[in-house]
C-alpha cells in the first residue's frame, strides 16, 4: 500500500530521509518495494504481510517508526466531544440486532453540512497515495481510513427510512444497489446495515447508492464500526466484491480505536464542510479483552530461538513501544487491540528480533550430525535418467493435469486403477487451463502433446522421457493412489550430434532397447516382453513389460487413430512403466563364472519359420532340449522379403558350444547341433532355410 512520507511526519517526529526510512522499514519487515516522488512528498510502496492489518494505515506505520527511532507518537486531541448519547435513547437512532457479527457500532450525526469540493491539501494528500477525490465528505472518510486504518461510511441521514439504522442479517429476497451501481442479491448469512425498511449498506464492504452522500445532502450519519472478520470475508467472497474496507475488516481493525477514528473524521467534516457535530452513539457489546502471553524470561526466549542477546529492558522497550505491555507480577505481556498476530511467546520473540535486526543474528552451521543420504531409489533414478540422456533422450516435464478428452484412450500402468472404483480418475473441481481437470493417470498424452509442439517447429526426430507421478482414485474417501512412472516417446530417425543428416528410421526395437538400457542402468532383474496389446497401442508392434512375470507397463507403436488425433504422419512409439516397481527390485550382485579354458565353437543357422514363431519360442525349444555342451543361443538377424512366402520370415540364430573339460571335436558338435535343430523343428515348426 502507498504511504506518504509527509503524512507520517504529522504522526511522529523522525530524522530519516525517505530513502533511509524505506531501508529502516524493510529491515523490520515492512518491505518497501519502491519510493516515488510526488511533488514535495515521497510515497513509499509498502508490501504488507497478511498478519499485519494494523500497518494498513499511516498510524500503524508511524508506530513501527516509533520503535525504530525510540520516540512516542505525536498526541492529537479528539477535537470534538466524545460523550456518547445515553444508551437508553440510542435505540432511536441505531439498533444492533446481530451482536455476534457486530461487536461494536458507533454512529455520529453531523448536521447542516455543505457537500462540495475538498480543499487542495486534501485532494493532494489523497492523490499522492493514489486515491481519487470525489467530494469533501467521501474524501474525509477515505482520508481518515488511511490515517487511522479504520474504514467508515457516511450516510445521508435524510434518505434513511425513519432516519435510523438497524444492523442485522439480510432477509431472503433482499437486495441492494451498491455504490458501484450493481444490484446485489443478499442472503441471511450476510450482515447488512439497514434503515427501518431495507438494506442501505453491505456491512463492512460497500454502501448503498440510494443513501449515499450527494450534492443535496444536509445531514450525515457517520458509521464507524467493527465487524466479525470471518463474516466479512465470507460475504466478500460470496458477492465477489473486495474493497479497501473489506480488506481491512477481514484482517481485523482496532476495535478500541473507533471513537478516535470517528472523532478524526467528524472534526474534519466540521472544519471542511461546515457540519455541526451532534449525537454520538456507541454500542459496544463485547469490550476488548487483551490476550495475556505468558513469558517468564523474554530475554532468554529470544536467545533460545534466535541466538540474539537482548537485555530484558531493551526487549521491554521494543514491546511497549509496539503497544505490548508487560505485566511483571503475572510474568506475562498483554497484546494490544490492534495486534491480532501476537498470541504466544514466539510472537514476542519475533517482535524483539526484527527490531533488533536480523542482520545481527549470527551465521552458524548446526553442530555436526550424521551423514546425509539419498533415498535408495533417488540414486537409481539418477542413473536411469543419465542412461536415457546418453541414449539421446531429452527430459520433459509436463503438467500433472490433463484434458478429459484422453479418458479411456490410454491404458495406465498395471494396478493403478482399482477395478471396482466407480470414479477411477482423480478430478479437479476446476482448472486454470481450459478443460484440464483430470489428474493424469498416464504421462503419455502430455508427452505426445510435446511431440506435437516440436513437430510444429519442424523437429520430427525426437526422443523424450518423463519421470513423474500418475494418479487414481480410491474408494471410501481415502487419499488417491500416486505412482511414479517413466514414460518414453520416440519418433523419426536416429540423429547424430552436430550432423544435419539422419540415420535409420526408428522402430519398435529402438524404444525397447532404450527401456532395457534404462532398466539395466538401475540393475533391475531382466525384464521380459510378451506380445500383448494395451488399448493405446497397435497390435503386432506392442508388448507388455514384465519383471519376474509381474507386468510393470507396456511398450509399442501408438495406435493409428490416436496418432491421427495429433496429426502424426510418421510412426510414434511409446512406453510407460511403473517406476516404483522397477526400482524396488533389488539389484542382483553378480556372481563370477570361471573364464573358459577350452575354445568354443559357434554355428549360425538360418531358420525359416512362420511369423507367429517368436525368437523366444526358438530359444525356449533349444534350452528345453539343452545339452551339456550348449553354451549360448543368440539372435543374429531376422529377414522378411518379397522373395518369401507371406507369413513367413527367416531368422538367423547363433548357437555356441563349449565344454569345460575338453576341446570339442566337429563330430561331437555336429551331433548335438543336429539334435537341437530337430528339437526346434518339432517344437516350433521352424526348419533350416534351404
Amino acid at each position, binding site marked *: 500500500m502507498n504511504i506518504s512520507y509527509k503524512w507520517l511526519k504529522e504522526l511522529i517526529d523522525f530524522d530519516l530521509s525517505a530513502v533511509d526510512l524505506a531501508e529502516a522499514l524493510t529491515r523490520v519487515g515492512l*518491505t518497501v518495494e519502491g519510493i516515488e516522488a510526488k511533488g514535495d512528498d515521497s510515497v513509499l510502496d509498502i508490501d504488507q504481510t497478511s498478519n499485519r492489518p494494523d500497518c494498513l494505515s499511516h498510524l500503524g506505520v508511524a508506530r513501527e517508526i516509533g520503535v525504530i527511532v525510540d520516540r512516542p507518537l505525536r498526541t492529537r486531541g479528539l477535537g470534538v466531544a466524545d460523550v456518547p448519547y445515553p444508551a437508553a435513547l440510542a435505540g432511536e437512532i441505531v439498533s444492533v440486532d446481530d451482536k455476534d457479527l457486530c461487536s461494536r457500532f458507533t454512529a455520529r450525526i453531523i448536521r447542516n453540512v455543505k457537500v462540495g469540493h475538498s480543499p487542495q491539501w486534501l485532494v493532494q494528500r489523497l492523490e499522492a497515495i493514489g486515491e481519487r477525490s470525489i467530494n469533501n465528505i467521501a474524501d474525509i472518510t477515505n482520508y481518515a481510513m488511511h490515517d487511522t486504518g479504520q474504514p467508515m461510511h457516511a450516510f445521508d441521514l435524510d434518505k434513511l427510512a425513519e432516519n435510523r439504522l438497524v444492523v442485522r442479517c439480510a432477509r431472503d429476497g433482499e437486495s441492494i444497489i451498491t455504490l458501484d451501481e450493481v444490484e446485489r442479491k443478499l442472503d441471511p448469512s450476510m450482515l447488512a446495515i439497514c434503515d427501518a425498511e431495507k438494506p442501505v449498506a453491505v456491512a463492512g464492504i460497500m454502501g448503498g447508492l440510494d443513501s449515499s452522500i450527494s450534492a443535496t445532502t444536509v445531514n450525515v450519519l457517520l458509521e464507524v464500526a467493527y465487524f466479525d472478520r470471518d463474516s466479512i470475508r465470507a460475504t466478500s467472497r460470496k458477492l465477489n466484491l473486495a474493497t479497501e474496507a473489506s480488506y481491512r475488516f477481514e484482517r481485523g481493525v482496532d476495535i478500541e480505536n473507533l471513537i478516535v477514528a470517528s472523532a478524526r473524521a467528524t472534526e474534519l467534516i466540521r472544519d471542511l464542510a461546515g457540519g455541526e457535530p451532534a449525537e454520538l452513539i456507541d454500542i459496544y457489546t463485547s469490550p476488548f479483552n487483551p490476550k495475556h502471553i505468558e513469558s517468564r524470561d523474554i530475554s532468554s526466549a529470544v536467545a533460545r530461538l534466535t541466538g540474539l542477546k537482548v537485555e530484558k529492558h531493551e526487549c521491554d522497550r521494543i514491546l511497549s513501544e509496539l503497544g505490548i505491555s508487560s505485566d511483571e507480577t503475572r510474568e506475562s505481556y498483554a497484546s494490544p487491540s490492534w495486534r491480532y498476530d501476537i498470541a*504466544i511467546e514466539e*510472537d514476542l520473540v519475533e517482535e524483539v528480533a526484527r527490531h533488533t535486526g536480523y542482520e545481527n543474528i549470527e551465521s552458524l552451521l548446526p553442530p555436526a550430525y550424521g551423514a546425509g543420504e539419498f533415498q535408495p531409489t533417488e540414486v537409481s533414478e539418477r542413473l536411469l535418467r543419465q542412461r536415457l540422456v546418453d541414449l*539421446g533422450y531429452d527430459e520433459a516435464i509436463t503438467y*500433472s493435469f490433463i484434458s478429459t478428452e484422453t479418458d479411456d484412450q490410454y491404458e495406465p500402468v498395471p494396478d493403478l486403477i482399482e477395478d471396482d472404483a466407480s470414479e477411477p480418475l482423480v478430478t479437479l473441481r476446476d482448472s486454470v487451463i481450459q478443460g484440464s481437470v483430470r*489428474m493424469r493417470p498416464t504421462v503419455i498424452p502430455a508427452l505426445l502433446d510435446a511431440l506435437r*509442439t*516440436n513437430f510444429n517447429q519442424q523437429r520430427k526426430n525426437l526422443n*523424450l522421457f518423463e519421470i513423474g507421478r500418475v*494418479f487414481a482414485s480410491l474408494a471410501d474417501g481415502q487419499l488417491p493412489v500416486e505412482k511414479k512412472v517413466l514414460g518414453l516417446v520416440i519418433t523419426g530417425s536416429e540423429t547424430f550430434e552436430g550432423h544435419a543428416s539422419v540415420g535409420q528410421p526408428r522402430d519398435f526395437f529402438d524404444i525397447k532397447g532404450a527401456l532395457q538400457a534404462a532398466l539395466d542402468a538401475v540393475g533391475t532383474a531382466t525384464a521380459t516382453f510378451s506380445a500383448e496389446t494395451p488399448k493405446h497401442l497397435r497390435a503386432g508392434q506392442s508388448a507388455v513389460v514384465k519383471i519376474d512375470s509381474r507386468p510393470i507397463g507396456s511398450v509399442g507403436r501408438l495406435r493409428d487413430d490416436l496418432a491421427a488425433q495429433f496429426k502424426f504422419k510418421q510412426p510414434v512409439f511409446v512406453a510407460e512403466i511403473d517406476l516404483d516397481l522397477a526400482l524396488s527390485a533389488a539389484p542382483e550382485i553378480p556372481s563370477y563364472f570361471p573364464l573358459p579354458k577350452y575354445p568354443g565353437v559357434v554355428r549360425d543357422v538360418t531358420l525359416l519359420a512362420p511369423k507367429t514363431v517368436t525368437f523366444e519360442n526358438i530359444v525356449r525349444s533349444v534350452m528345453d532340449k539343452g545339452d551339456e555342451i550348449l553354451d549360448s543361443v543368440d539372435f543374429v538377424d531376422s529377414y522378411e522379403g518379397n522373395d518369401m512366402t507371406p507369413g513367413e520370415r527367416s531368422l538367423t540364430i547363433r548357437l555356441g558350444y563349449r565344454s569345460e573339460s575338453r576341446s570339442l571335436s566337429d563330430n561331437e558338435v555336429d551331433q548335438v547341433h543336429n539334435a537341437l535343430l530337430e528339437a526346434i523343428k518339432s517344437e516350433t515348426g521352424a526348419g533350416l532355410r534351404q
Partner: protein
Amino acid sequence: MSQETQQVEAVRVSFDAEYQRFGDLVLDGSGLSAVESLLRELNELKIAHTGKRSALAESKKLIGRVPAEERATFGQTVQSIEQHIVDSIETTAERINLFIVNAKIEAERVDVTQPGRRPRQGHLHPITILRQKIEDIFVSMGYTIESDREIETDHYNFDALNIPEGHPARESQDTFYTTDGFALRSQTSTVQIRAMERHGVPIRIIAPGKVYRRDTPDMTHVPMFHQIEGLCVDKGITMAHLKGTVTEWLKRLFGDDTITRFRPSYFPFTEPSAEFDFSCFKCHGTGEYENDRCRPCKGSGWIELGGSGMVHPNVLRGVGVDPTDYSGFAFGFGLERMAALMYSIDDIRHMFENDVRFLEQFR
C-alpha cells in the same frame, strides 16, 4: 681391355640404357596407381639386372678366364657395376616409395574440424539439473532427501502447518481441490509433517517436489512448479543456524563471495519468520553488469529467493515434538524462479512446453 672386361662394360651400358627413364623420372603430378606400377617395373629391372640369370651374374663367372694379374681390376669393375645398378635402383625406389607414402597421406587426409561421429546426446530438464546440484550440496551437509505425496488432505496441507481455516493462504482461489475434497499440495512444507511423523526428531531433510497453485499461466506464473523445502529440528537450533545453513548452500552453489540477507516476514508455520535474499550471482551485488542495469536482480544487487523461519511450536506439537525441548528451522524456495534467474529465462512457461530447442540449451 680384355674381352671379359668389355663384356662386363656392356652390362653397364645395357643397364644404363634401360634405367635412363627412371633416372630422368619426374613424379610430381603423377597418379598413385601409375607410380605404383612404376615401382613394380623398377623391381623387374632390378631382378633383370641383378638376379641369378642376369648378365651381371653371367659376367661374374668370367673371372676364371681373366688373366691372374688382371683379376683384381676385373673384380673391382664387376663390383662397381653391381654397386652402380643397386644404388641407382635403390635411389629411385626410395623416391618412388616416398612419393607413394605422401600420396597416400594426401589421399587419406581428413578434415579434423568436421563433427565427431556420435549419437545425438539427450538433455536433462533444467529443473532436474538444478535440483540435483542442490540435493548434492545438502546431502554433503548431512541432509536426507525426502519425497512425498502431491495430493494431500487439508490436514497436511494446512492444519498441521498452522494455517487456520479462514487464512488467506487457504482460500480455494489459490488451491486446487479434487472433487473428493483433497488438495493438490500448495507447498512442499507438507513433507515436513510427514517426515517428522515417520522419523521423529532430530531430523535434517530436504524435500524437493511439485506444488500447485491456481495461477493462470503467464510469463512469471505457472499452475504447477517445483519447490525445495528444508527442515532441521534438534535441541538448541536457532535462527543463527538457519542463516548459516542458507548462506552455506548458496555459497556452494554460487561461489564463496555470495552473501545473504534475511528480512522479517510472515508465514503461518514459522515464528519468527524471514524471507531470504542473496547477492546477485551475475553482478555480485553491485547492481550493474557490463555498464548496464543487471538483469537478474533488476539492478538491486539482491535476488529474493524464498521463505524461512523457526518452526512454529504448533507445528512441532502437532507431530508430538515438545517445543520446549526441540527447536528447528525450515526454509523453502521455488526452483523455476531460481532456474529462470540463473539461466536468464524470460518466460517460465517454457519450462513445461518441452520444446527441444529449449531443452537442448541445458547440460
